[in-house]
């Protein structure tokens, strides 16, 4: 159907971004293809690989019993999106495709090294989530390509992800800054398996590569975490907007990153509930 209607068609999932864009005149598709009835895309399965269907709602991620312990960051990311009404409709796939720089679950999925599967008239392909989002509202998906699912390997034991969203209020808020960190400690007490992903501070969620380089293989002292946070603040390219100034965003990154690293390590150590 998408191939038939070409560029004049958009997929409608939860509609919590698309309908608003249409109402504001930002998008004007001639046709909407309602994909919500595709129930087979709404499931979540948890094993050595975790698969989240593109139509899984944020509410279903938030309430999934398996996302406690080292994957708790998925719940933390999902539960701060909008409010209950939004979370009952908004889908993870839609959130990725909408490509807001401030997307909440995306940094967590990036830190989990997730891949997305996409279906088009020419077939199925898989690509890393890291690099799929190109800028505000833009992804590497081709016209008519349908995101069908997101998958990641369960992090090895001793590695966890944590997430923090900074904003002016606790609900119905778009992040001023959000941070996802994946980390563990090796046998020597040194940081390993390290991802630092920053959201709302660049045209798309970004890895703080110089912060990662400073932290990897080092022992996580307070001084090192502070220095890495400074580096991360320099790694990002925030703008001034109604929610926060660029300067304040850098300040938030600098102050909050050590906290998120420590939380990831604590979660890694605590492990998963039996």
């Amino acid at each position: 159907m998408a191939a038939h209607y070409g560029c004049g068609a958009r997929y409608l999932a939860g509609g919590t971004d698309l309908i608003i864009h249409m109402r504001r005149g930002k998008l004007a598709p001639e046709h909407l293809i309602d994909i919500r009835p595709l129930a087979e895309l709404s499931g979540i399965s948890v094993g050595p690989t975790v698969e989240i269907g593109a139509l899984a709602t944020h509410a279903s991620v938030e309430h999934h019993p398996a996302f406690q312990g080292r994957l708790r960051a998925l719940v933390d990311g999902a539960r701060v999106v909008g409010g209950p009404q939004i979370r009952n409709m908004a889908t993870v796939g839609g959130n990725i495709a909408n490509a807001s720089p401030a997307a909440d679950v995306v940094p967590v999925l990036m830190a989990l090294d997730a891949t997305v599967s996409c279906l088009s008239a020419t077939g199925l392909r898989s690509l890393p989530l890291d690099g799929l989002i190109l800028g505000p509202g833009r992804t590497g998906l081709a016209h008519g390509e349908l995101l069908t699912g997101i998958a990641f390997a369960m992090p090895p034991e001793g590695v966890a992800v944590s997430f923090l969203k900074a904003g002016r209020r606790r609900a119905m808020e778009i992040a001023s800054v959000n941070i996802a960190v994946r980390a563990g400690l090796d046998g020597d007490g040194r940081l390993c398996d390290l991802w630092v992903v920053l959201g709302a501070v660049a045209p798309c969620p970004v890895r703080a590569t110089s912060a990662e380089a400073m932290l990897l293989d080092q022992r996580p002292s307070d001084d090192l975490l502070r220095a890495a946070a400074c580096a991360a603040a320099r790694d990002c390219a925030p703008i001034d907007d109604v929610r926060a100034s660029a300067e304040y965003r850098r300040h938030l990154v600098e102050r909050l990153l050590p906290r998120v690293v420590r939380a990831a390590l604590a979660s890694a150590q605590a492990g998963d509930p039996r």
Partner: protein
Amino acid sequence: MSKVLISLTINGETHELAAEPHRSLLSVLRDDLGLTGTKQNCLEGECGVCSVLLDGKVVNACLLLAVQCEGSRIVTIEGLEDPDGGLHPLQTAFMQHGAVQCGYCIPGMIIAAKGLLDGDPRPTDAVIREAIAGVLCRCTGYQKIVAAVAAAADQMSQKRDGQ
């Protein structure tokens, strides 16, 4: 754009109507079906006064197309009724606790609260606050709304346990 036939199940009744595909559920409820208890405000999913229950889950009617809701059970504020025919305990509690000032957010608040209590009959105040976080109130400061929801939960639990 030409109209399509839509069949919507609202508060237990099925309504057959013709509407253009771009019409929101909110607009159809209010303008076609006269169910004006569900309010209209931001039309962006930010204020929650348009909240309805869709298959038991609280959602913003302004962000749903009416055509998407065929085959689903919709409950609006008009559909809340005690099995005995009187007011729903939530409605009574809101009045008794002074939780209503201008009244505009109240249908949204009650629907959100009903969605909560249907799944979690004994929520803490913190959980209540999270459940109503998608409905904005400019008048009350939320305190009495939370108290009313908690009181309704108690009342409903007692009634259930008493049976």
